[in-house]
């Protein structure tokens, strides 16, 4: 599959704007723009290949949930998890983490935002289609301060622990 990749997001870039989706408290789909969450704020955006897959569910997300208070204490305004899934799936997946208080689960169903970040990953062979690489970004006032993009199949630099070191 040939995909025209945008340049991969890097330190010093201005984060692109884009629209992501979620379900509100009445289970209705809503949209939100990244810039509306990130402008004049310190935000962490971390991406996962897929809801309901093991590393994402058992290690990546829990790491950010557990350290959310600590991240907030260090001035992080928003912690955002994005994945190429629809908002119904993201909402249901988010509910499997009842202890979560701060992490927002946002859906990039058509992979448009992931494409704008240059972080697509073709997982067609695994039955997932085009998804996102595993990554974590620290963004301050829309500028990327930290861009940790994981090598396929690994889970090291994109963890909560790594990004805390940068704060």
């Amino acid at each position, binding site marked *: 599959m040939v995909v025209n990749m945008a340049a991969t997001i890097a330190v010093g870039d201005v984060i692109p704007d884009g629209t992501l989706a979620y379900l509100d408290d009445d289970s209705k789909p809503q949209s939100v723009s990244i810039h509306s969450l990130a402008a004049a704020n310190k935000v962490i955006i971390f991406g996962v290949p897929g809801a309901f897959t093991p590393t994402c569910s058992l290690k990546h997300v829990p790491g950010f949930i557990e350290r959310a208070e600590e991240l907030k204490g260090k001035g992080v305004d928003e912690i955002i998890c994005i994945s190429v899934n629809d908002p*119904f799936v993201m909402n249901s997946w988010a509910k499997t983490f009842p202890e979560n208080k701060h992490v927002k689960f946002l859906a990039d169903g058509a992979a448009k935002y992931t494409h704008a970040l240059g972080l697509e990953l073709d997982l067609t062979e695994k039955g997932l289609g085009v998804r996102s690489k595993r990554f974590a970004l620290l963004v301050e006032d829309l500028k990327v301060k930290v861009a940790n993009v994981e090598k396929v199949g690994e889970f090291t630099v994109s963890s909560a622990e790594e990004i805390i070191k940068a704060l």
Partner: protein
Amino acid sequence: MASAMVKGGGSRLIKSVSAALGTRFYAKVATGTDIVSAAPNVSLQKARTWDEGIASKFSTTPLKDIFKDKKVVIFGLPGAYTGVCSNKHVPPYKENIDKFKAKGIDSVICVAVNDPYTMNAWAEKLQAKEAIDFYGDFDGSFHKSLDLVTDLSGALLGTRSERYIIYPP
């Protein structure tokens, strides 16, 4: 040979299920169609955990293996974890599975344009895995071959399948 009929008339069982669903059905896949011939080289992915995927080397199931020498009912729906699908469409099939078996149906299959891991988690949540075989058509190829796709971008779902049932004569 796997003939297919898309609900238009049909047995009393199908009628009572469809009455419970309160839905209409389309006849894009015409009565008498051989599904395997209509969608050659198409495979589905059985709902599974990631570990099961690794163990099976992410194998796919060709349609002929699903249909071969069996009487199969397939029903499709727009999306796992969405309202009508979860609350109204799957439960009647699960509850009536014995009636299907009594009529000689070997298996009832539920398909949606979702990846097989999401389908698996959803099937477990609905406690329906014993009754129904869930498959993912993650890239839509099965539904595109049968002209059963619909654009649900307005609901932020993208290209999905229609809501339908296919059953043997």
